[in-house]
């Protein structure tokens, strides 16, 4: 029996363990396996294999029995998930169900999750803007949260590294606040977007309208073909999973790439309970997993552990990893674990119309939009709120069909498409300030269906956010008005925090172990063989969509971890 146990333990021992298979976990797995490390990838949800497991990807609109509208039973049972813009009849199978994965909202917070191999990388909006030096310098300059331990120059080569592999479309715009990357050919701005770009350049010296940078293959390079991926076909139904691999997901790219090395073991249905800390060795020795099907606890062992469970679940795992050395959660000597949670503020929109270019329209579909890089407080503090916002900007030709009347006249009206004005719209993407009072914690009593403590989430907007919303509405309305747009309207949709799906922090990076959890290599200050490279590690949030930065941080941290392992420092 003793021998059997030894063999069993050996069979459960790897060089590295990656917790989570989403955007950052996929990158950790790719980089570790490419460097020859036998790597176990743990995923709490089911397996989703590229193409094979995209059941709705080739369905025609009329094949959806409710034409994408949610059945009432499903909407009622999932009020949180149903508030997500991307939760549809065609994509809802890639969202975690509210009732199966409960949490406690001390304040309203929409926690949107994708529990399957690939995680939310199947569902993301695929915008991939780099951060600039101003974003990394923000907390130190404006005296909030804690100073970042890295700057733009530390991460720039890793942005390039991940951009080339993932395939990022974009234009080299030469904008200080939004550095250019390794771009495939850009998508096109349409006539009204180009017109607005010109108007804004004429009227404002440091405001720009550009085409968004997005994870779409507009012109496949050899590295994309090697992954079995092809050119984006402009279907714009990405949330169903793309059979062409036209956009980047873990499923189409990093996970199969890691599998191809022969070094990856993927274990779905594995809910991570905690990271095991070995008092004698003074480092982590493995991971405790609850098998989602049998509810049995199993332990796996490794020299290096990458925690990529998505921001709030990475906090949950660390908080639940208690030992005599770390009674309050792994690496949590500072007591700050779970605190300084921040997010993005997507509450406000501005819309309008343009009565020019009436002889023109667009043709085809574009899985991308225009983008207004942050222009507030970039070089110095100039408003009564800290930081700033980026914004989306898109124009579209409005069309309508006459729905009046009944019978043959109605039918004729429906068959004739009439062109109206151009519609223009913008949405804000605001930076929020990480605060100690915005936190997550474990509930002391309530457990989820897997026996894990329920996560308590206490996160809210503040006055800074309200001022920023007001400024966004004023500034974009002014830009619209100056461009000659009419019927300009602002809206605050009062969505809950979390609904932007850009939750970050809780395990922030920093220079000082007293005020941060992770060092400049995303390594726990007090448990050197554990790395956290997802949104949990973010010291501040910037305005850019965060996924590209998680990818770059993951690749960078793996490179460091493997070198340290070779040097026997882990």
């Amino acid at each position, binding site marked *: 029996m003793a021998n059997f146990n030894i063999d069993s333990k050996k069979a459960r021992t790897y060089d590295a363990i990656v917790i989570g298979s989403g955007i950052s976990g996929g990158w950790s797995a790719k980089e570790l396996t490419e460097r020859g490390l036998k790597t176990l990838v743990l995923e709490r949800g*089911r397996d989703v294999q590229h193409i094979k*497991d995209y*059941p*709705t*990807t*080739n*369905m*025609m*609109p*009329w*094949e959806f*029995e*409710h*034409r994408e*509208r*949610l*059945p*009432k*039973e*499903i909407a009622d049972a999932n009020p949180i998930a149903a508030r997500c813009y991307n939760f549809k009849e065609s994509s*809802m*199978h890639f969202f975690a*169900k509210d009732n199966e994965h409960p949490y406690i909202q001390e304040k309203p917070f929409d926690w949107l999750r994708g529990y399957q191999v690939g995680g939310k990388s199947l569902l993301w909006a695929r915008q991939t803007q780099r951060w600039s030096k101003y974003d990394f310098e923000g907390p130190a300059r404006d005296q909030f949260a804690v100073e970042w331990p890295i700057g733009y120059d530390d991460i720039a080569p890793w942005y390039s590294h991940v951009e080339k592999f993932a395939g990022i479309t974009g234009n080299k715009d030469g904008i200080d606040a939004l550095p250019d990357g390794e771009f495939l050919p850009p*998508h*096109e*701005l*349409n*006539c009204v*977007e*180009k017109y607005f770009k010109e108007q804004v350049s004429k009227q404002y010296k440091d405001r720009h309208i550009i085409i968004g940078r997005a994870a779409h293959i507009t012109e496949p390079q050899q590295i994309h073909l090697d992954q079995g991926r092809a*050119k984006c*076909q*402009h*279907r714009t139904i990405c949330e169903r999973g793309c*059979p062409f691999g036209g956009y980047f997901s873990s499923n189409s790219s990093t996970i199969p790439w890691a599998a191809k090395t022969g070094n990856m073991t993927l274990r779905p249905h594995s809910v991570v309970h905690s990271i095991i800390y070995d008092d004698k060795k003074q480092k982590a020795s493995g991971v405790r997993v609850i098998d989602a099907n049998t509810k049995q606890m199993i332990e796996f062992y490794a020299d290096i552990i990458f925690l990529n469970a998505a921001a709030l679940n990475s906090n949950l795992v660390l908080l639940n990893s208690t030992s005599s050395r770390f009674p309050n959660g792994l690496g949590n000597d500072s007591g700050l674990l779970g605190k300084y949670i921040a997010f993005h503020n997507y509450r406000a929109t501005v819309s309008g119309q343009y009565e020019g*270019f*009436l*002889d*023109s*329209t*667009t*043709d*085809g*579909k*574009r899985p991308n939009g225009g983008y207004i890089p942050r222009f507030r407080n970039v070089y110095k503090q100039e408003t009564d709120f800290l930081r700033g916002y980026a914004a989306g900007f898109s124009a579209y*030709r409005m069309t309508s*069909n006459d*729905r009046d009347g*009944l*019978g*043959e006249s*109605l*039918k004729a009206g*429906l*068959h*004739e*498409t009439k*062109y109206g004005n151009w519609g223009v719209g913008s949405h804000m993407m605001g930076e929020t300030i990480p605060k100690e009072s915005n936190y997550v914690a474990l509930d002391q009593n309530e457990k989820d269906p897997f026996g894990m403590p329920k996560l308590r989430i206490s996160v809210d907007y503040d006055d800074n956010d309200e001022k920023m919303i007001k400024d966004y509405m004023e500034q974009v309305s002014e830009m619209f008005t100056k461009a000659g747009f009419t019927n300009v309207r602002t809206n605050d949709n009062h969505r809950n925090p979390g609904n932007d799906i850009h939750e970050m922090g809780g395990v922030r990076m920093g220079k000082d172990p007293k005020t941060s959890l992770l060092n400049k290599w995303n390594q726990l200050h007090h448990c050197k063989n554990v790395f956290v490279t997802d949104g949990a590690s973010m010291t501040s949030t910037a305005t850019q969509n965060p996924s590209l930065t998680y990818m770059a941080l993951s690749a960078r941290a793996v490179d460091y971890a493997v070198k340290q392992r070779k040097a026997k420092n882990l």
Partner: protein
Amino acid sequence: MERRGALKSMAVAMGAMAGLPAWASGWNKSAVAKSGLLAADQSKNLAMIVETIIPKTDTPGAGELGVGDFVQKMVKDCYDAKAQASLASGISNIDEQSVQRFGKSFTDASKEQRLQILSDIEKGSDTAQKGFFSMVKNLTIQGYMTSEYVMTNITHYEMIPARYHGCVPVKKG
């Protein structure tokens, strides 16, 4: 044309219409019995209502395209009990009006008589009946415009455009 054909055969090959895997259909209503919301005669009346709203001309009408079943399914699955009751009573009300005004059931009434009944409801002052009719008309238009026939033959839906041009001339219809 060739592309459209290729697309269709691809959809078939990919098993688009085949049953979804268990984890995907867990999110669907497949577990719920497929029984309709309305009795058989009410369903027939609804089919005649949608056909009256969008009739057969040189192209099929909403009745022939099965839009009545779509309307019923949507109200059953996506609307609350009040709307469901309003659908049933609204259809009965139309049938009663037809008998009162023209001495025959709605399905037996002439095309002009049917149009007149629906048009009077749409323009009338009975808010409950107007609310019912507005729901049915909107769903009829949605079901018709998103039917395979209309999207394939009239509005020419493109599953895979493979392009985006930001500025092209508006085609004169």
